[in-house]
């Protein structure tokens, strides 16, 4: 099983439901911090917003793209960052992490951030979403999306909704040329 995320750029209306819900549900312990995510100057959650204001304005939601060849897993000295065998997701085993921040540096997507109290790297899926996914359900960002712009599922299963969407649409993966093989599909049309 290889679980993947899908984000439909043609449908997203930038409502921030996923961005705020991710923070509120996964990291509620820091939700009232003056600066919950100083590294990104952002809220304490796993989804960043990137907007291009020039040309035809465009939007990306950036979070862990769950590479099949993840640079963060490559650099982790303790195998704390690893590809989960059951799900194919890139996860962090916090008990092994020593906090060297190599994974944060290594991620070409800027998907990781330092938790302000544990000083350990955080990434998608957050702790609550991990359990939701283990329970066989779709993570919070997918379940809250009002615009049908997100999906999540097994790309090894040709009948999963995500596989069907990928097969039917023009999609791309972020910074594909880097060879990281992200399991995150951006639908473009």
């Amino acid at each position, binding site marked *: 099983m290889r679980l993947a995320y899908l984000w439909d750029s043609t449908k997203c209306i930038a409502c921030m439901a996923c961005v705020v819900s991710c923070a509120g549900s996964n990291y509620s312990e820091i939700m009232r911090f003056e600066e919950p995510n*100083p*590294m*990104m*100057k952002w809220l304490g959650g796993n989804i960043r917003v*990137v*907007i*291009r204001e*020039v*040309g035809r304005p*465009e*939007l*990306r939601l*950036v979070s862990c*793209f769950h590479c099949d060849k993840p*640079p963060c*897993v*490559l*650099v*982790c*000295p*303790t*195998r*704390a960052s690893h590809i989960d065998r059951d799900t194919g997701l890139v996860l962090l085993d916090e008990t*092994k*992490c*020593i*906090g*060297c*921040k*190599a994974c*944060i*540096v*290594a*991620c*070409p*997507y*800027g998907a990781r951030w*330092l938790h*302000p109290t*544990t*000083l*350990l790297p955080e990434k998608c899926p957050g702790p609550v979403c991990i359990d939701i996914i283990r329970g066989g359900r779709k993570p919070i960002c997918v379940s809250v999306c009002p615009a049908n712009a997100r999906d999540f599922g097994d790309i090894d299963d040709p009948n999963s909704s995500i596989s069907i969407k990928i097969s039917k649409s023009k999609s791309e993966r*972020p*910074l594909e040329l*880097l*060879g*990281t093989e992200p399991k995150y599909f951006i639908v473009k049309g």
Partner: protein
Amino acid sequence: MKRLTLEILSILAIIIGLILIGIGFTRKAIHEVSWGSLVVGYAIFAIMALGSSIVNSIYALFGYRGPKMELVNIAKLGVLFSIATLISAFLIKFAGVSRPLDFWKIYVYFNPDSRIAWMTLLYTILLIFLIVKLVFFIRVGSIELVRPLKWIKLVIAALVLITTILAISNLAQIYGSIIAIPGWYGLLAPYFIAIAILLGASGQALFIMLALRGKTELIQFLSRYYGFILALMLPILAFFLLWNIVTARYSTAWLTYSEIVTGVYSLGFWVVVVVLGIIAPFILALYSFTTGKYLPVILASILVLITSSYNMYLQIIVHQLKALEPLAGVIREASYTITGSEILIILGSIIIWPALYVLAIQLLPLMPGEKPSRLYIFK
């Protein structure tokens, strides 16, 4: 009496250093870049220790002893310098991670793909080899060795050098394997080796010549010796630097290289790194090499230490300040300013560094001609 004072002072310095590091560690702030000054400080110390080991091998492995056995006489100090520097590097490294007490996990959950895992292993091995080498030199002496001992010395020296080269290569790979940061991604190893040798030689020049002050002849030789190494390596560094800039110019690395070469950091780069870090020390070192005067090479060493540190700072920090977002045309920018906690940790390590060196000289028979008399290796 003087020895006791120095011992007490150096122990005090080590304690103060550790306290500073401790305070700094507990007040660490989160920066917009993940690898800040602590990683820079660590890299400088580590690379200096490695460079020092390379310099040491000129005698220990390749057998050049100097016209009057000068290099034989300073061999133990050279090894000591590597050890003290490496320990200082470790101190910053420990303080730089979030969970220093979990360092052992690197060995238990060793990830063979990870350059950092290898780095930890290589430095541990290197430290062990260096200590063995030091003990060997203390116990056996190093003047004229009979057969088996000579081979043992060569084997130890070879192991040290091999580990050192692996470690430098590894250090370069830590950066050079990171596709996220084009300014680092690529062939950094030669550049790092050049800086390593420069830093190692400069550090040794300062520390060893300081320890040997008064020994005029030896100093004169060492001035020529380190002057030669610096004068040799600086043009090589300049060559690699140029090559790095040229390759960066035509790749995404220019995103951040341009900041160094033509942007906000260009003044620092051209004045500090190029003029004060390459041209000026080259002239000074050449002068010492030809005349045997010690002052120019000391000055050159100080310049190299400061400017190469600044160069490492630029190389590590600036390349993290801009990155391409996964959306064409958008650049993610970060800012970085060094914080008090980082200064405390670096300051602590900088205090401990010479203190370790001085303390060891007081406790161990490391000066030319000294021999162990107590507890196997002590004076």
